[in-house]
């Protein structure tokens, strides 16, 4: 465990520039994960209610004409 955390330290936090890069990259990744995760939960709760759930009926109808 100690070896892992010290190598993590050496890898990401030793140099300030590297740490800054780590912070930005992980902020980006975490936001993506959080947004898509919460979107999934939200769409699950509101299944069948939103426009994206019923859109196919009308888009297809328009194409057939």
């Amino acid at each position, binding site marked *: 465990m100690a070896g892992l955390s010290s190598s993590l330290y050496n890898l990401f936090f030793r140099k300030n520039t590297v740490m800054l890069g780590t912070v930005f990259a992980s902020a980006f990744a975490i936001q993506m994960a959080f*947004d898509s995760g*919460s979107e999934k939960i939200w769409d699950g*709760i*509101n299944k069948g*209610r939103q*426009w994206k759930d*019923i859109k196919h009926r*009308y888009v297809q109808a*328009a194409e057939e004409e």
Partner: protein
Amino acid sequence: MLARSCLRSTRLVGPVARNAASKTASRSASTSSSTAEEAASSWKTTALGSGATAFAIGSVAWYYHLYGQNVDAMTPAEEGLHPTAYPWEHTKWSKTFDHQALRRGFQVYREVCASCHSLKRIPYRSLVGNIMTVDEAKALAEENEYDTEPNNEGEIEKRPGKLSDYLPSPYKNDEAARAANNGALPPDLSLMVKARHGGCDYIFSLLTGYPEEPPAGAVVQEGLNFNPYFPGTGIAMARVLYDDLVEYEDGTPATTSQMAKDVTEFLHWSAEPEMDDRKKMGWKVMAIGGVLFALSVWVKRYKWTPLKTRKIIYTPPGGPAKNPSSPRPSVKMNERQ
């Protein structure tokens, strides 16, 4: 007062006539007089206490009578019947609008309400992705004509509508609307759900609340219709929704209450089109905010640990040294960790 002065005079006399009889007499006199005094004062105390209590209760009652009651400027009929609270699905904290219902509601608005009520704040573009596809909205916009910008000769011409145009109003202006409706102005419905107490419940109750005929004794003015939910009970709008008035494209049976429910939900959307996103964003904010709050609590406890767990020991000079390791009397900070 009288009894007390008697007592004093007896005492003054006492030393002069030093005999047992007078002493006994004075003692018995003082005893009897103090009993009378006690009786009188206890009566007074009771009266005073009762009076004060009665006054306190009375003044509270008077104050409540003056300021504590509801003050109604209007009679219940003028106020209008309070609408029933219906279990709207879309007003729950975690629910979006039912967009299929919005589509039906917009159909009801267009086929029924739009002949009298404007919906000025809704452009065609906001229907896209909520109620209809781009192509449907474009086709709908092109059904109506709008003024162009003045051309080179300053003439204003007509052009077909675009997505950026707003829904057309049924009347040129409010005066024309009044003239066509017996002097009553059909209000714009864009923000109607926000503009009335009871919101969705009120509008649904209003649309479905017309009785077959007004109850006995109700006075309905010429040209007005009886509706108990409308403040004043006389409304210039007659009942507009009847079973099977519209034909829903998705096959939903168009009962009066179904249409009223759909058009009400649609009007809620038109008043608050941001609701879906607002709720979703609110949940996200609470999730992130919850994590940040927990973190800040942890950081606070972390930073305060040394302060919260330290122990200050005072060893008095010359006294028994409680802490033998300290060479001289001092205030010592001891960290327990």
